């Protein structure tokens, strides 16, 4: 089947087998390997990407279902060689060790910030991040990184809506 979609602002049109997940399509067909695959059945959250403004598990969606959608992956965050404020906060707070889970956490946090539903308390923030697993950090530094990003972006308003930028 043919799919046509926007990924990180660029148009793509490609043939896919129906059983190809969005995650495999991004990684293997588009070579956007920043999206990581951990469990492949929706438990670990490593493959989280943003589809039409919402964080979703890309291993639980078939590429054909994203036909006509707008997808954002971790590769879409940096602009003109500059890290996104969320990425900077992760770096500054040491919010990763091996980094495998990081793209999933960043995309989950990005959706939170951009939906304008970023939680006020640490407890709520932990609940929002609970769908992403990390086996290194013990989560402390990740929670700190996201909290820091929320602080920075609400002060400066640096994070706007996902830019559609279809070319």
């Amino acid at each position, binding site marked *: 089947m043919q799919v046509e979609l926007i990924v990180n602002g660029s148009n793509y049109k490609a043939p896919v087998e129906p059983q190809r997940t969005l995650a495999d399509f991004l990684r293997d067909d588009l070579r956007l390997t920043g999206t990581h695959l951990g469990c492949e059945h929706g438990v670990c959250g490593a493959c989280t990407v943003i589809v039409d403004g919402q964080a979703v598990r890309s291993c639980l969606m078939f590429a054909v279902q994203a036909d006509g959608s707008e997808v954002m992956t971790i590769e879409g965050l940096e602009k003109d060689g500059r890290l996104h404020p969320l990425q900077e906060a992760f770096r500054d707070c040491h919010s990763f060790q091996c980094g495998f889970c990081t793209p999933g956490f960043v995309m989950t946090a990005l959706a939170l910030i951009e939906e304008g539903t970023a939680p006020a308390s640490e407890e709520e923030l932990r609940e929002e991040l609970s769908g*992403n697993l990390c086996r290194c950090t013990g989560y402390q530094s990740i929670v700190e990184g996201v909290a820091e990003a929320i602080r920075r972006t609400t002060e400066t308003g640096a994070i706007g809506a996902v830019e559609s930028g279809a070319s």
Partner: protein
Amino acid sequence: MKASAFEYVRVSSVDEAVAQLAELGDEAKVLAGGQSLVPLLNLRLANPAYLVDINRIGELNFITNGSGVRVGALARHRDVERSELVARVNPLLAAAVKLIGHAAIRNRGTIGGSVAHADPAAELPTILVALDGEIEARSSRGARTIAAVDFFDGFLTTTLQPDELLTEVRFPSLPTGGGWSIQEFSRRSGDFGVVTVVVTLATGNNGTISEASVAFGGVAGTAVRAPSAEAALAGQTPSAELWKAASQEAAAVLDPPGDLHSTPEHRRHLAAVLTERALVEAYGRLGQEA
């Protein structure tokens, strides 16, 4: 960990969907949010020849008022979670939906999908059984309404026929001024409950209990009511002793399964403890509704 090959059929109306299901029969599975089905496909626990993708049926994406809350099969958990109508009319449903999975799961997962999947430990089947909810299904033969108790037939099994599409789920209103509670024990945030208890309560003019509903998830092949506990509560004067006695009564008659997550004894223990907590909380909420 990849799904086996299938034919993908995208439909955009209920009529089109039921026509496809009538033709393809049990060779086909309906794909809604995919948060339960796709894991089964990826693990190759299911390998249907056809997937009928109903995600683009706009007419099934609604949340409306109507002797409670009527929720279209394609309403996402996140929409129900954030619905002002649901929060006002059925706060139990709003609370239950928040317990389902995680944000990214709830963004995709649908109400109809959760109900049709019929996991006996899931929140929505448990509250449907507690509230005497209804499910509407359509096929090329027509539409029918199925009571929740008749819909859930066993572990991951419903009485939905292969040519039928679940189109709507109806969550009746809570009793006026009534109290409610959902209590769940799970090992990790977002997991299915090892045991889930749903309670609704109402009292009459003389302060005795006029209506009581107690339902369990995770203790049998389907969500179940606890008639003995309900009988123990009916007509009684609320008290701490009554909550304890009714909870013990509810747990005593259960014959829960043992599995990777828990033993039967532990589940019975949880059932008693959670029922007592639920009764206390539901009683505390009596009369809180505007």
